[in-house]
């Protein structure tokens, strides 16, 4: 994969984290699309969600599909003919950036649980190191959904001069209690899997498959909506006509979840699951930036915002996004807020939707058209 780049830093000066510990030799994996213009006014930074990677979209026809293929590409909302797009894998993940599965330079072995605890703030600090290295001091927009939306929010407040706008989708100003609860259940599934072995399963045949797939099954339920699940599966049985009076996977919805869990184990690291969910749980921009006040936090930002919530998102309910939009308006920011009517639940921001497509596209056009006043 020629397009997957890695930037390494903290080779001499260690990278300081929110928890007080440090990391050395940090890698940030990233991909780019499109061309940076000469006055560097068309750069957009995209943040992936919890289990995503830097691979937001294909780079050529036969390339693997990206996680935001519907929105990133030639002529799409994030138009790669018009904009220069960067997407980096977050710290703590397992797609090329430094995380618990990376080798600890001090021991030559994977970090596992010696990996320090990280936060959303730390993920952005790492990406900021990359963008400074790429000499992009100001983005046209920073954008993301779910955890990616949290990163966009944090970026807009932490580096107020380094973006003209922020696109925040299906996100929350802080991780809600219910979402923390689901994360905890998911983590317990991994922690209690005997194959997890206190995180030291790297290099062995036995990995915490059961725990990680169970965690994903639980998570996946929170990404859908009741209505969608009902429509998609109803009470239909899988490959049979009658009830079997057993505890095996019998309903289609059960078998679908099992498939989601199995598929996930092959592509994600259990320790990354633990560290990233914890980072999301700790997220609260009111505490991180506003001494407890949403208003004080947002007063530090300077950019325009596009905020989209989704009517059936019960992980990060629309009410929360609406509150952010209202507070930002109170701070005098230019905000576009829309609650998109959809059955697709939290995952909506990943799914093709005309209203969302038009909103993002028009918002970005508006931002680039007004750029000369802001340079």
């Amino acid at each position, binding site marked *: 994969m020629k397009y997957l780049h890695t930037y390494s830093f903290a080779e001499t000066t260690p990278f300081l984290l929110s928890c007080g510990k440090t990391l050395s030799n940090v890698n940030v994996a990233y991909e780019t699309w499109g061309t940076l213009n000469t006055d560097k006014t068309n750069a957009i930074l995209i943040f992936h969600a919890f289990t995503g990677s830097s691979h937001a979209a294909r780079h050529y026809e036969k390339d693997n599909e990206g996680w935001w293929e519907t929105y990133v590409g030639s002529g799409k909302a994030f138009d790669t003919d018009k904009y220069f797009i960067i997407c980096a894998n977050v710290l703590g993940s397992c797609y090329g950036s430094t995380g618990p599965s990376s080798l600890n330079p001090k021991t030559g072995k994977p970090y596992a649980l010696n990996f320090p605890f990280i936060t959303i703030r730390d993920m952005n600090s790492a990406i900021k190191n990359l963008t400074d290295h790429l000499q992009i001091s100001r983005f046209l927009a920073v954008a993301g959904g779910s955890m990616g939306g949290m990163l966009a929010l944090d970026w807009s407040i932490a580096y107020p001069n380094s973006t003209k706008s922020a696109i925040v989708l299906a996100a929350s100003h802080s991780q809600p209690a219910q979402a923390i609860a689901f994360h905890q259940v998911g983590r317990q599934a991994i922690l209690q899997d005997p194959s997890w072995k206190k995180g030291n399963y790297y290099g062995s045949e036995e990995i915490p498959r059961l725990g990680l797939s169970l965690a994903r099954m639980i998570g996946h339920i929170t990404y859908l909506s009741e209505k969608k699940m009902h429509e998609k599966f109803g009470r239909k049985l899988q490959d049979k006509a009658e009830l079997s009076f057993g505890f095996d996977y019998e309903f289609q919805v059960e078998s679908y979840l099992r498939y989601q869990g199995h598929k996930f184990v092959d592509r994600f690291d259990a320790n990354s699951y633990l560290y990233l969910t914890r980072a999301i749980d700790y997220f609260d921009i009111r505490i991180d930036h506003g001494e407890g006040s949403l208003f004080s936090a947002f007063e530090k930002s300077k950019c325009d915002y596009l905020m989209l919530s989704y009517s059936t998102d019960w992980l990060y309910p629309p009410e929360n996004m609406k509150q952010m939009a209202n507070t930002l308006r109170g701070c005098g920011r230019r*905000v576009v*807020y829309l609650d998109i009517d959809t059955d697709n639940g939290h995952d909506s921001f990943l799914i093709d939707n005309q*209203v969302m497509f038009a909103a993002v596209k028009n918002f970005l056009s508006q931002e680039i058209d007004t750029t000369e006043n802001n340079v």
Partner: protein
Amino acid sequence: MKETIFNIGYDLITKEIPRGSRVLDLGCGDGELLAELKRKKRIEGFGIEISPESVGIALSKGVFACQADIDEGLSDYKDNSFDYVILNQTIQNTKRPEYVLREIMRIGTRVIISFPNFSHILIRMNLFFRGKMPKTKSLPYEWYDTPNIHMLSIKDFRTFCRQKGFSIEKEINFNTNINNSTSSKKILLPNLFAMYGLFVLKKD
């Protein structure tokens, strides 16, 4: 040739607003007024609109609007955040007109408010002779599906402002031509013969 359809009172409102003002349009619809004010008066405009489709269209015109209910979406604004707050053909749709008026007088230095006059002669005749809820050009709805839940007359609004202590800086009463553009004809007895009232309120 396509006939130009004007939007009610846009020309009057545009005339009122000085260049470069900071303007909030409540119930901004698809953002046309703000887009026009941006073009003609270089204003900095913001909108609030309940319909998500309209917010989307407004954005395509470069207008920043938020999907919110006017009856609850104003409390976060600081005092005097705007030079002008516009409530065009919208007050009669609000659940709590008095609360909305107080809020916009708080957040704006000036308020422009325009509404259909319910005591217009045609409406009175409609009710008197037909014995039915009036349906006219300015009030085209049936009683059961109208968004107009707080109808008022020009006289009502004057009384309201006096009682609640809102000072009226300017009052314009107007009729519209067939294409909705503002008619230039003088109106005698406006409470009876004007289809619309427009008031500029100013903070004391």
